[in-house]
């Protein structure tokens, strides 16, 4: 049986309850009795149907087909509040390593909010509170012992608009390794910069002007520079928040090609508004709606035959 229904997070590992760092924990969703009964007694088909029925009633059931391969990030019961207003509701999602996972959904669905929880970017927003547990390689990233700065070196981020520092191309890439003390000698740094630029597919275009300002590069080149900057510190995870939305189709294609190459080494999570892009670059897709995870599974399944009606309506352009 491939498809599994997660009931909110109560049938998960129980992670989160044992987490002492969170004073507040959201209670598990109370599901209609019919579902809990069905999940115990009836066959899988009935369970899916019962779950679908309950999702129509409450829009809270998650259809999750688990990924194959090792899990890099395991989110359990993650909720986010901004100034007391809940933006994300008990999201439980497994993100496999060396895979591109696309987060899709309409504006305000919580996908970017969820992305930001994975390198604790929400810590920087005053009034924001995150509950639940996010484990990277089994380790709770919200644990007090974790230094967010070091975490962000392990979990790099690429934003919608390229944001190079107003410095030279070389310094942009060298900055991370320098502040994290990853290299000591200049010659070593040259090697790190070159290899990061090569992996980002930018080396051939900038090799002869490394000391020129990064601000002189085109948008697509700047975005690849930012990716080079992210991978220069040897991260494990790269988060991308609509990395191509400010780029033209050719630059977009180059970034997508780059993402496909990078997934051999990194765990990549990308938020995108372009469903075609999600279908092109990702192997796993998670669909969010109104702050909840609705469905997650292999990208090819989601785009060929999604299980949830809301997913189908969204990807076929029938929303609302």
């Amino acid at each position, binding site marked *: 049986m491939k498809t599994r229904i997660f009931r909110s997070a109560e049938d998960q590992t129980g992670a989160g309850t044992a987490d002492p760092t969170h004073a507040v924990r959201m209670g598990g969703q109370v599901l209609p009795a019919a579902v809990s009964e069905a999940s115990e007694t009836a066959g899988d088909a009935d369970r899916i149907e019962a779950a679908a029925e309950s999702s129509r009633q409450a829009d809270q059931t998650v259809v999750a087909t688990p990924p194959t391969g090792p899990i890099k990030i395991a989110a359990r019961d993650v909720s986010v509040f901004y100034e007391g207003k809940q933006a994300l509701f008990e999201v439980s999602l497994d993100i496999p390593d060396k895979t591109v996972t696309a987060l899709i959904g309409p504006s305000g669905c919580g996908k970017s909010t969820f992305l930001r929880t994975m390198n604790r970017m929400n810590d920087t927003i005053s009034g924001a509170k995150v509950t639940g547990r996010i484990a990277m390689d089994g380790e709770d990233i919200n644990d007090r012992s974790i230094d967010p700065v070091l975490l962000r070196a392990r979990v790099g981020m690429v934003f919608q608009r390229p944001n190079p520092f107003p410095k030279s191309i070389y310094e942009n890439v060298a900055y991370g390794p320098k502040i994290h003390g990853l290299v000591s000698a200049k010659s070593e740094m040259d090697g790190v910069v070159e290899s990061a630029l090569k992996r980002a597919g930018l080396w051939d275009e900038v090799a002869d002007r490394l000391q020129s300002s990064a601000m002189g590069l085109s948008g697509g080149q700047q975005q690849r520079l930012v990716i080079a900057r992210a991978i220069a510190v040897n991260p494990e995870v790269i988060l991308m928040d609509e990395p191509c939305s400010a780029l033209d189709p050719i630059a977009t294609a180059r970034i997508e090609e780059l993402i496909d190459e990078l997934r051999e080494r990194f765990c990549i999570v990308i938020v995108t508004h372009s*469903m*075609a892009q999600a*279908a092109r670059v990702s192997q796993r897709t998670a669909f969010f709606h109104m702050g909840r995870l609705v469905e997650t599974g292999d990208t090819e399944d989601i*785009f*060929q*035959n*999604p299980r949830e009606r809301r997913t*189908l*309506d969204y*990807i*076929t*352009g*029938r*929303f*609302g």
Partner: protein
Amino acid sequence: MNQHTVKAYGDELNQITAEIARMGGLAEAQVADAIDSVARRDIALARAVVERDLKLDALHRDIEKKAIRLIALRQPVASDLRRTLGAMKIATDLERTGDLAKNIAKRALILAEGEPMQPLTRSIERMGRLVSTRLRDVLDAYTASELDRAVAVWQTDDEVDEHYNALFRELLTYMMGDPRTIGACTHLLFMAKNLERIGDHATNIAETVHYEITGEDIVGERPRAQPTAEDSDPTPNLSTH
């Protein structure tokens, strides 16, 4: 199903479905008229069937064009993609059905020149009616998105095969009894084979409808008619679906 946010997209998909319905109606009529032309030795009707086949060919091309255009401009996914590809496949099955009906009508023209072969043409008529019903059922299942009805058509393909096998034996007996009937019987035999192929196309359409609705292939055993041992197998393993 909800409306597409882009209304023109939904309209285009509906147009393709409507054209399939039209093409289906025409193909059904072609089969029925071809059979009638055999039964009634109606030369005018047989000629009309041959001529009308051009219309089916044109509809087939048109549906294909519309589907390709929709894929290029709208990039359909999931159920919309299955619907688009399903329309292309069904249009091909219907076009082939039309060709087979035309073939029957052409043979009807030849048969009309000879002596009537009453009991044999009645057997063809019966088989023709069975095949027409299956075609109508599966096309209704398509327009109404009725999964059960499509599956029922798929499961009963053996009825057509049984009919074909019986007709084969009947014709063989005739030919052995009176070699002067060999010419006419051979035409009737080809007609029976054509009808059997039309039945196969109905089965193909049932499979397409199932895939379109569920996203999954039909699974399970489909009953198959077994030809009797002493026959030189009238339905050798040339099944194409």
